[in-house]
Structures are given as structure tokens and as C-alpha cells.
């Protein structure tokens, strides 16, 4: 079986995964561009719940980062920087796109800067 992973992951604010009518559908853009999505907690969650979810996300980002996967941040989420810092991680390059073209352009630029994704640095998967 060929493993089809992209080695590229976007941390994505909830509003781009579940957009309000007329708002940017970030999930569709990321899916078309072949990026994996790690959804950040919705803004209306209780603080304790959001903090627990963010800690779990940071734990997973840490494992991906150890294997050289590429990350970006789409949108923002209170508490993310602190959760990442707890895992010894910095906030990745960020965009708060207003349009699908803006997001697609940002992702394409990241692709040109790092066309191999995690290949050669990580040790995961067969290609």
C-alpha cells in the first residue's frame, strides 16, 4: 500500500473548519492543497475544556515536529502559544486569510520553501 500522507499540517481555527455562511471555507482550501488539519478548539468552549484540548494538540504537534513535519497556523486561538510553549514549541508561521486565494497562495509559498515536507528529516512512513 502506498502511503499518501503530505507531511504538511495546518493548525486551523474553528471558524475556518466550520465557517459561517459567506465566510471563508478554509477546510476546503486545505483539503484541495493536500494539507492535514488539526482543528483548534472552538471559541465558545469553557476555558478548562479548551485548555485540556490545547494540551492534547500540543502533545501531538510535538510528535510530528520531532519527525520534521511542516506546520502552519491558520487563524488564531487564545491559549495556543502557551500550550505549544509547554511542549517546547514555537507558534508556526501564521495567516488569517480573508479569501481562498490568499490562503492557497500562502500554502503554495510554504510548499515552494519546503517542497519535500518532512521527507529526509523524519523517519516515518514509506514513500
Amino acid at each position, binding site marked *: 500500500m502506498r502511503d*499518501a*500522507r503530505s*507531511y*504538511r*499540517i495546518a493548525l486551523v481555527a474553528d471558524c475556518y473548519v466550520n465557517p459561517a455562511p459567506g465566510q471563508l471555507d478554509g477546510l476546503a482550501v486545505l483539503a484541495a492543497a493536500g494539507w*492535514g488539519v*488539526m*482543528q483548534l478548539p472552538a471559541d465558545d468552549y469553557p476555558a478548562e*475544556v479548551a485548555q485540556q484540548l490545547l494540551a492534547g494538540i500540543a502533545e501531538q504537534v510535538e510528535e510530528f515536529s520531532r519527525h520534521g513535519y511542516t506546520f502552519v497556523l491558520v487563524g488564531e486561538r487564545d491559549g495556543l502559544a502557551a500550550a505549544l510553549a509547554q511542549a517546547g514549541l514555537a507558534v508556526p508561521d501564521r495567516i488569517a486569510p480573508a479569501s481562498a486565494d490568499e490562503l492557497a497562495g500562502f500554502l503554495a509559498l510554504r510548499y515552494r520553501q519546503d517542497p519535500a515536507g518532512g521527507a529526509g528529516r523524519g523517519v516515518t*512512513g514509506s514513500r
Partner: protein
Amino acid sequence: MGVAFVAHCLLNQNSKVGDGAHCAGVYSPIVDVLRDKGWRIEQMPCPELAFAGLNRFWAVREQYDTAAFRRHCRRLAVAVAGAIAARVRQGEDVVLVGVEGSPSMGVTITSSDPERGGRPAWPDGSPELTSGEGIFVEELHSELDRRGIAFLVAGERHAIPGFEEADQRTRLESVLERGDA
């Protein structure tokens, strides 16, 4: 309509065990059905990723059924149950969309082989598939029961013999529309 809490890998195939990623990132056949039906999407954590890492082997339920993995799953399940509880308080229906055949994320089909262990060599095929929940789903189910929260379940079915995308879509639509398993 309601909120679908989906297995992590359905939005991020990079989390799959090696050789297990069906596509680059977002697994659209499930996501598209949920969106077509007007369900909100919320992503659960991958319980295997942070615990066993990206270089983990394919495994059956018994290999993950350790005290340490269950503690890890319970910690994650408390967080997810808190999120589910918040949505239930808003009056939303909830469906868990897992991964059938998974030792941790199966919702009606998991994998079992009490003898598996040691040097990793076993024949291809599906003799390990068995009815039941994966370990994370079991822990989440327990936590939701403790909170008195009811939910529906559906699963991504790539690992099930005879998999057809149209059948998977029909099953998911049935759950979303009528609450059928």
C-alpha cells in the same frame, strides 16, 4: 443536524500508522457527507499518535490494552467529553465518527488477536476484525455514560473487507438522518 466528533485522522491523514494514509491530508468522503448534511465538525485527538508515536506498528486491541494507554485515553476522553457536554447543553445531537477496525478508534468494529506480539510478522487479511469498540472509544463511552450523555456512532470503513465508498456514504447518511447504526 448536530455536531460530529470525528477521529483525528479523518482531517489529518498524517497521523496514520505508516503505510496507512489513504490521502494527503483531509479524508473528504466523510467530511463531505457531514457538511452536505449540515453537521458541524469537531476533531478528536489521535490517542495512538502521542502515546506510541509516528513510527508505531500496526497493532490489535490487546497490544494497546495496557494500564498506561488506558490512563492516556481517559485523560483525552475527559477533554473530549467536556467538549461534547458543552454541545449537548446547547441542544445539539452528537455523533462519534470513528475508524472501524482500529484498536483505539473503532466504534462497532475493532481488531483482536490475543496471540499477537513479539517480532512483527503476520499474514495480510482481516482475521483480527471483531465486533466492539476500540480502547479510546470505550473510555470515551464510559465517560459519556458517567455524564448521562447519549450519542450516535458511525465509522470510516477502509479496513473492512469489501469496502466501497458508496456503502460507507450510505451508512453515514443513515446514521445522520435517522440515527441508525
